[in-house]
């Protein structure tokens, strides 16, 4: 035993290594979290640039800037990059930074595997992006890559896309295994499951979704691969297969996937609202059970994405009612958040602004989801801009809002410095107003019948598209300010206290700011855990 302590003690004092190779070799959860977050941010900018291209083409009716094939490549890559390159890695980055600190652990449970989970991503991203430069161009079949568009009628580059998906899925599965092992095995011995902060709970449940869903995606792209190259007939009716089967397998992954991207954001919001309302979180236990219920339901509702693809009426009814059920646990969460801030002594620092607008805007996205989940209504909405508006309200003003809120909330802990509050607020209002200018009119466009993924449109859609595009450029520009605020904080920020937010609770605030390289060498005591726990 003495040798082991000596190893740890020796490591503790040398801290991070010098030089750039440190980032390649690192096994430290904070370094890896930082790598994830910067990778996600650069992918966000890239995916955002694709979106700017899309909005520029849609500024006016008619074809202006690009041929339709390239437009389709942009919509496809925008979706793939944002989902697999920006949102998912950003949440894993947050998990890396925060979970060991929140559960009183020294680091992640499997540090080398943690390094691999990250260092697969740049390679996968490079393979995915290289498809732009191949003959026939990048995949142009939409991020859902439905067969037969992605099998019979796709460019050769699709095989590279398939392997990129394999790598991204591999990274997610390894990351999820690591998070489960960290939460269940590394939490302080005195911490019980129902003492765990909600960000830890939501990520634990998200990890189960990842391990259940990502291998199914791997199966789907493997079937695509063999259909394309080895003459199998999974998605080809002439061989007895069925293209609709692709959609079933894809959405069996795809629906849990949307909760993979939102549950950690729920966790983040459940930390920020109590802090700035100066009240304990309302309904801690019900939050945990609601999250678990949402996760369970997410596995049995997938075909609500396919109401117009063709399925027996009994199937449509089942998937509609099961989908409606999700509104119950989601409602529990929203009501709990509202009850948390009810009669609170609220102040409106930047993280709180993001969190409050999350509650309102995500709920709008949730409601439009309910509308889409109703079979007869969906016949009207399916594949229109209404769907685009819906999933951007849940993914941008939901998932991305949660990430940005988390960045502002924990930035003082990560960097030991305070960001510029005035700029933070300017950025918030800029982004919040412009995001609604982009996406709210898209509801009207969709209801009026404008189809998604089409570079041209009829004249009656021109005004709303113009407004949406102007909002899009403004929203895109807001991320330049975001980058400036973060860099300015790291370079010039004023030193932050270990607990920069007056009534913030959580073990991470008991550490110094910036947090030490190895979070907890001695696990917190029962008293400390109870003092910092989220239940009142």
């Amino acid at each position, binding site marked *: 035993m003495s*040798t*082991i*302590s000596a*190893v*740890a003690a020796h*490591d503790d004092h040398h801290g991070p290594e010098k030089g750039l190779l440190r980032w*390649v*070799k690192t*096994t430290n959860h904070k370094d890896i979290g930082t790598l994830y977050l910067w990778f996600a941010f650069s992918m966000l900018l890239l995916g955002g640039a694709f979106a700017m291209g899309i909005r520029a083409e849609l500024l006016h009716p008619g074809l202006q800037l690009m041929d339709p094939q390239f437009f389709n490549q942009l919509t496809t890559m925008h979706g793939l990059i944002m989902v697999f390159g920006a949102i998912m890695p950003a949440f894993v980055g947050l998990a890396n930074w925060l979970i060991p600190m929140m559960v009183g*652990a*020294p*680091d992640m*449970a499997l*540090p*080398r*595997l943690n*390094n*691999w989970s990250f*260092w697969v991503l*740049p*390679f996968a991203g490079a*393979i995915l992006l290289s498809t732009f430069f191949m003959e026939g161009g990048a995949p142009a079949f939409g991020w859902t890559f439905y067969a037969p568009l992605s099998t019979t009628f796709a460019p*050769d580059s699709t*095989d590279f896309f398939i*392997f990129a998906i*394999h*790598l991204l899925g591999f990274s997610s599965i390894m990351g999820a*295994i690591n998070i*489960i*092992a960290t939460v269940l095995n*590394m939490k302080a011995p005195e911490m019980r499951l129902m003492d765990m902060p909600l960000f830890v709970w939501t990520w634990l449940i998200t990890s189960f979704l990842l*391990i*259940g*869903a*990502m*291998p*199914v995606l*791997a*199966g789907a792209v*493997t*079937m695509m691969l*063999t259909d394309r*190259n*080895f*003459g*199998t*007939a999974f998605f*080809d009716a*002439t*061989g*007895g*297969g*069925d293209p*609709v089967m692709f959609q079933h397998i894809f959405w*069996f992954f795809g629906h849990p996937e949307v909760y993979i991207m939102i549950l950690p954001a729920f966790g983040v919001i459940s930390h920020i609202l109590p802090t700035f309302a100066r009240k304990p979180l309302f309904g801690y236990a019900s939050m945990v059970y609601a999250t678990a219920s949402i996760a369970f339901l997410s596995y049995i509702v997938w075909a609500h994405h396919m109401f117009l693809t063709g399925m*027996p009426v009994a199937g449509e009814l089942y998937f509609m009612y099961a989908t409606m059920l999700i509104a119950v646990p989601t409602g529990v969460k929203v009501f709990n958040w509202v009850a948390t801030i009810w009669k609170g002594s609220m102040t409106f620092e930047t993280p709180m602004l993001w969190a409050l607008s999350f509650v309102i805007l995500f709920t709008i996205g949730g409601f439009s989801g309910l509308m889409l989940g109703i079979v007869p209504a969906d016949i009207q909405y399916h594949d229109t801009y209404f769907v685009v508006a819906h999933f951007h309200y849940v993914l941008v003003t939901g998932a991305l809002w949660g990430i940005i809120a988390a960045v502002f909330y924990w930035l003082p802990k990560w960097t030991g410095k305070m960001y510029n509050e005035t700029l933070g607020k300017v950025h918030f209002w800029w982004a919040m107003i412009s995001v609604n200018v982009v996406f709210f009119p898209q509801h009207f466009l969709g209801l009026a019948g404008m189809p998604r993924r089409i570079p041209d449109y009829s004249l009656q859609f021109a005004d709303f598209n113009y407004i949406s595009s102007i909002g899009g450029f403004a929203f895109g520009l807001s991320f330049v300010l975001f980058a400036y605020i973060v860099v300015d904080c790291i370079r010039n920020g004023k030193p932050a206290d270990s607990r920069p937010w007056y009534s913030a609770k959580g073990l991470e605030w008991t550490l110094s700011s910036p947090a030490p390289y*190895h979070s*907890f*060498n001695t*696990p917190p005591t029962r008293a400390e855990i109870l003092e910092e726990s989220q239940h009142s």
Partner: protein
Amino acid sequence: MSNQNYYIPHGTYWPVIGSIGISTTFVGLANLMHDVSWGAPVMGLGLTILVFMMFGWFGTVVNESISGTYNKQVDRTFRWGMSWFIFSEVMFFAAFFGALFYARILSVPWLGGADNNMFTPELWEGFKATWPLINTPGAIGQGGTAFSTSFKLVDTWGLPAINTALLLSSGVTITYAHHALRKGHRNALIAWMIATIALGVLFLGFQITEYGHAYHDGLKLTSGIYGSTFYLLTGFHGFHVTVGAIMLTVILYRIQKGHFNSENHFAFEGVAWYWHFVDVVWLGLFVFVYWL
């Protein structure tokens, strides 16, 4: 109680080497499939890097384990990790079983006009929805070119039944090996391990023989949905048996080197779990692919 005993390794190049290896393999494979001449050598290079990485990474872990760097808590981490890794593999196979059930129960009958698809058979005159689907719509409709099929089924109670017996027995022998390990009966342990590996290798040999017969009797990857599900399910299973047999061989080598004792042998247990998982998948295959 202090966390200081939890070993946190510092600085490693193995993961990034692994990423380079796996990306090189995939880029090579994609080019190989597109008939690019450098595809195969690049894929070979990638696989070589991967093997090098595995030797290096596992070697490091083995050395750390032998030198007593890991405590009980690290051991529990490995257990969680291996269990959920196996669960992810289960879900990978679930995708292919899902495809099989969807085709058998829903889409093939629909092609034959079941439910509200009464006009579908008009597209292919004389199409009969059967399982196994011998005559695909393509074989009938387009002058018999696409997915032209005429194959004989593998006899359930021939090689597949023997293989079931082999794999189930190997599940028993590895359990005996585990008992021997826990009691410190070294010779029995080695004997049971050799028996397990032999059963696995025999299984693979029979599987290859069976593939030969099936292929000779016309059942190919291109035989439509039956061939697709048959070869992908049994193929991925066979690949997992191969990996399992390699892992068992490594464990046998490590037993010879005296790496394990009756208390401390998670590597053995992890491989045993994997072997049982491969066994259970086979039972699913035997029932739903070969038998029913």
